[in-house]
């Protein structure tokens, strides 16, 4: 454990070495999230709501997804180096070390500039909470925190899934972006607006609706069922297939580098 901690500190220190560079990247991340926010803002200057969700409630969705994504990507985004590791054969070097393989890849590839994204999401949350007309109770606060935490896990699993697929293809697959970066953008509206079939897909295949749409209905007092309250926790079942695919990929691994 100490070893991983050292990895983590080392990476943090090395990213802090180039202060201007780090700051610029962070500002970039901050602006990225802001343009999506302005996109919503400008549209809602003209309209009152989308389906039966108001401006504040849409912003609530946006900030939950954005925070989950920021945390998930800060930790898991580094897994994008997977295809390169596989192609260059650096994977072999990692495999022979008697330590967790996943942590050896994650720790040195953490990207702290994602904090810019997180900061922006926190600001939007500040606008969203008073505007969303949610009557807060402590149960709701717990559910809300669960939404963000479980969401981060789901996004992390998505990055792991994308990385695991490269075990089989040796290349990064562009269209998988739609589940990571795409969902960050599309998650600004409650997933129900995209229609029944997309909602079903995001409930049972990639359970992002479980951390956004269903618990939101509970927060808004539209649903009180236990399933709605527990839905963020249920989404954690997604961990099983992602880890499984990673394990299968790892056991099928054939070195391709020299």
């Amino acid at each position, binding site marked *: 454990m100490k070893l991983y901690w050292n990895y983590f500190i080392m990476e943090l220190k090395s990213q802090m070495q*180039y202060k*201007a*560079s*780090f*700051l*610029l*990247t*962070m*500002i*970039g*991340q901050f*602006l*990225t999230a802001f*343009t*999506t926010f*302005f*996109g919503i803002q*400008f*549209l809602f*200057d*003209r*309209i*009152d*709501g*989308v*389906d039966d969700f108001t401006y504040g409630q849409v912003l609530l969705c946006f900030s939950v997804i954005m925070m989950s994504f920021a945390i998930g990507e800060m930790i898991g985004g580094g897994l994008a180096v997977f295809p390169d590791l596989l192609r260059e054969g650096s994977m072999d070097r990692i495999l022979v070390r008697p330590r967790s393989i996943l942590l050896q890849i994650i720790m040195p590839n953490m990207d702290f500039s994602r904090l810019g994204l997180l900061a922006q999401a926190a600001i939007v949350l500040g606008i969203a909470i008073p505007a969303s007309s949610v009557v807060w109770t402590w149960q709701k606060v717990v559910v809300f925190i669960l939404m963000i935490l479980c969401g981060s896990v789901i996004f992390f699993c998505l990055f792991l899934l994308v990385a695991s697929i490269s075990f089989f*293809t040796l*290349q990064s*697959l*562009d*269209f998988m*972006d*739609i589940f990571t970066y*795409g969902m960050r953008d*599309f998650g600004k*509206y409650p997933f129900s*607006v*995209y*229609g029944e079939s*997309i909602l079903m897909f995001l409930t049972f295949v990639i359970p992002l609706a479980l951390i956004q749409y269903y618990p939101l209905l509970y927060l808004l007092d539209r649903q009180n069922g236990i399933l709605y309250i527990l839905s963020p926790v249920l989404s954690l079942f997604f961990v099983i297939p992602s880890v499984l695919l990673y394990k299968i990929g790892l056991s099928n691994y054939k070195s391709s580098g020299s």
Partner: protein
Amino acid sequence: MRAELNVYFSMFRIRFNHNLQYRAVVLGAVLKGFLWAMMEILGYLAIYRTGGDSLPMDFSSTVSYVWAHQSFIVLFSVVFADSEIYSSIRTGAVVYDLARPVGLYGRWFCQSASNRFSFSLVNCLPVLILGILMPAPFRLVLPASALQLLLFLVSTLLAFGVTVAIAMLMYVSLFYFISQRGIRIIVRITTSFFSGGVIPLLFFPGPVRRIAECLPFAAMQNMPLQIFCGTISGADAVKGIMFQLFWLCILILAGWAAMGQATRKVVAFGG
């Protein structure tokens, strides 16, 4: 001059053949563009369902806008995988480029242009065809008249030029900044937002829109996409094309001058 043109042309051919090599990547990119556009359209569908009357574009124009935006997304992106150029600046290999008997500005301009053009032709344009084949509410509607189509093509060419010219300015700035990643993220997001890449410029509130429409970024994808979906037509379109031409000249001149300035005292890293 002729010999120089030949050099540029063969550079383009090499790049084009290179991009055609990876079939799986092509399929992945087309699928991604298609799904992305569909999700965006479904989002707009919900918005129009709720408050469509108060929006300045009708639904079918917005649908066409989204399809065309996805199909030309690489052609009109300032920041694209021009890895040769980035690594040439970072590693200092740029000194070899400077020693070549071909002007650096022209060389990089061609390289960037052909990177985007050849990638788009194979990976993105099929999305346009898929859009035309979609059923009714989601279908991409082509420009009504041949004239409008012609104006669109001219405007596309100019927007493409402006895009690459802005990219050139960014490369020059990388001579001075060590952080490539930060600059790239900031440039990508500003150019995409102010050229109508997040939402069409027409959806911007009045005062913001008037400012945005004067910026050079409005001479990028904003103009051809609006001509494509019919929100700008006839004399306005011609005026728009003049506006693009104006910015293209300014940006190329600025880029040329800035690059001359930067390369005169280039400090190369690496040994």
